[in-house]
């Protein structure tokens, strides 16, 4: 007698869906109108049509499967008609959700699940999309047959913007479609531009002021002093290098910000990447007088990831350890398998024995331009952007950065990467 949605769904759906079959023509017309009004929705519309066609076919054979693997259990005859619809819907980049008159979810494509997390059939839509304007949109489409929302904004865990179109796919049977199209790129460009002006101009001003000061000195007091000229030119070179580094890092960061949740799907070998980075930074380690120990387990150590980006992550962490924990003389790099939030993951730790980071700074060191000690960072050719880049890359990889640190004893930065990328 519980409110067990799963138990009472099938018959209701079957009934609705067979009604849906009779109205396929109507559905097609509705979708055609949608496409005319909003060409971007073409793909969603086709998929929507095929989906309704597909489920109608299923309803005809009255074999509505229950449980998680819906749609994959039919006979090959059903499968032929059904699979293309779901596959098509799943192949779309844009999230798409179909729901019924009771506002219960009937189907959500892969993109929707990737973007919004769990969306299981039978789940009440307004419980998941709670924003007042979304609730209103859903009510409106049920009443009027179509509706749209200029902007749906989610701030956490990753900031996203969508334009949402809603339409009745089949008013008689009561099936409705929500189609999301990403508006994030536009918004992110705007946000980046204002952030760039706020941060970069401030950061670039210091080296710029210093360079222009030296130019004046070179043209004035030091005009006839070759020794001073030589010295100043070295400093000016250092300042332009610093500006170049800043710009490089800012560009990396903005590239990452443009695609914060497009998830990498190729498998990469973590041991390979980490040991490669240790090799490539051997010079810096020697320069700083640091000896490196490496502990890697045997066996397969693969995660879905972007090779170049992960290299950037470990380069940043390792060079930080070399630069800010020089006094420890020793850095330990290790890889291990572990559970993270209940899922299998690979953890890469970089442990140093330097001066550590005071606890109150730890939650903030991934903020842009945040440094514990500005002067040390400057001497070490830091930009204050390294960990911010690391954080962005890890977000994209659904990974985590853990920081343990004790003042006077050292710090451990641990990167945790899920072994399976399809977990939210």
């Amino acid at each position, binding site marked *: *007698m*519980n*409110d067990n949605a799963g138990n009472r769904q099938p018959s209701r759906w079957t009934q609705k869906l067979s009604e849906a079959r009779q109205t396929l023509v109507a559905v097609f017309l509705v979708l055609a109108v949608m496409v005319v009004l909003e060409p971007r929705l073409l793909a969603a519309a086709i998929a929507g049509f095929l989906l309704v066609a597909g489920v109608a076919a299923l309803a005809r054979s009255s074999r509505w499967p229950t449980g998680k693997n819906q749609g994959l259990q039919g006979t090959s005859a059903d499968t032929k008609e059904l699979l293309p619809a779901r596959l098509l819907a799943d192949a779309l980049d844009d999230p798409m959700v179909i729901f019924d008159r009771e506002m219960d979810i009937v189907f959500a494509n892969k993109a929707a699940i990737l973007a919004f*997390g*769990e969306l*299981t059939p039978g*789940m*009440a839509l*307004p*419980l*998941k999309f*709670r*924003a*007042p304007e*979304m*609730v209103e949109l859903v009510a409106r489409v049920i009443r009027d047959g179509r509706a749209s929302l200029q902007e749906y904004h989610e*701030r*956490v*865990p*990753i*900031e996203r913007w969508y334009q949402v179109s809603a339409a009745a796919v089949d008013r008689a049977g009561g099936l409705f479609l929500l189609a999301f199209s990403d508006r994030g790129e536009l918004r992110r460009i705007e946000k980046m531009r204002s952030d760039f002006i*706020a941060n970069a101009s401030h950061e670039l001003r210091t080296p710029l002021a210093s360079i222009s000061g030296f130019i004046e000195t070179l043209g004035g007091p030091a005009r006839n002093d070759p020794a001073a000229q030589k010295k100043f030119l070295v400093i000016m070179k250092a300042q332009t290098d610093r500006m170049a580094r800043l710009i490089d890092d800012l560009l990396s960061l903005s590239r990452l910000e443009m695609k914060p949740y497009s998830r990498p799907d190729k498998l990469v070998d973590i041991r390979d990447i980490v040991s490669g980075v240790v090799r490539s930074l051997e010079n810096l380690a020697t320069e700083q007088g640091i000896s490196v120990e490496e502990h890697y387990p045997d066996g397969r150590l693969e995660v879905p990831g972007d090779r170049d980006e992960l290299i950037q992550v470990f380069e940043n962490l390792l060079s930080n350890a070399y630069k800010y924990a020089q006094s420890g003389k020793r850095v330990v790099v290790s890889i291990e398998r*572990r*559970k*993270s*939030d*209940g899922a299998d993951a690979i*953890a890469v730790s970089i442990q140093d024995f330097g001066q550590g980071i005071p*606890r*109150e*700074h*730890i*939650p*903030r*060191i*991934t*903020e*842009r331009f945040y440094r514990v000690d500005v002067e040390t960072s400057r001497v070490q050719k830091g930009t204050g952007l390294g*960990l*911010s880049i690391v*954080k962005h890359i*890890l*977000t994209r990889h659904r990974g*985590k*950065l*853990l*920081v*343990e640190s004790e003042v006077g004893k050292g710090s*451990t930065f*641990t990167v*945790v990467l899920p072994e399976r990328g399809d977990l939210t």
Partner: protein
Amino acid sequence: MNRGSHMVRAFDEDLRFLSSKIATMGGHAERMVSDAVRALVNSDAGLAESVIAADAVLDDAERDIDDKAVLIIARRQPMAQDLREIIGAIRISADLERVGDLGKNIAKRASAVADKSQPVRLYRGLEALADLALAQLKEVLDAYASRSVDRLVYVRDRDEQIDVMYTSMFRELLTYMMEDPRNITACTHLLFCAKNIERIGDHATNIAETIFYISTGKQMPLERPKDDEANAVIVDQPE
């Protein structure tokens, strides 16, 4: 147990009413908190006003839920899971109503710090803190929708992150106040805002515990399966 099927359906409808009210409250509470912080950061008096006005929606919804819950219990005398469902709705709505109050309180302070003479860094910190709390709120409300309890135990861990971050902000604000007494008024308001956000995180944890109780009939375990992440600070807050 032989209640007629129409009885069952009516009861389902009752529960649906409760959960949809919770959804409404959740959506409004989330919006109020994010708008309040935005109003504070951008010194947006109009937005602050609308947050303050929106609080009435939550008060009304909470009252509706309480009334309905009492009616359902009296009329249908539910047992076990059904009863937990109803009691849970009462508890969650009380937490959400408090979240709304805290959001409103933040919005009220927006005008007090409107001159914005404080360093940008402080507002950034406050935003980051609010994002942590909002992420928690979203996680638990999503769990209410999906009824999946597996991730709820981690909500409490992440609440510790909020506490750490709050402590860090607290110290930073104190430093500013000591540097220049003219900062004291504005910084005190910001301090209360940070405290409010930290408490919003606590309410999210309460809700997590309630959902766990609704679904399992048990208290959420204090000890979770160890993740080797106990001592570390997880640095994954959005900027």
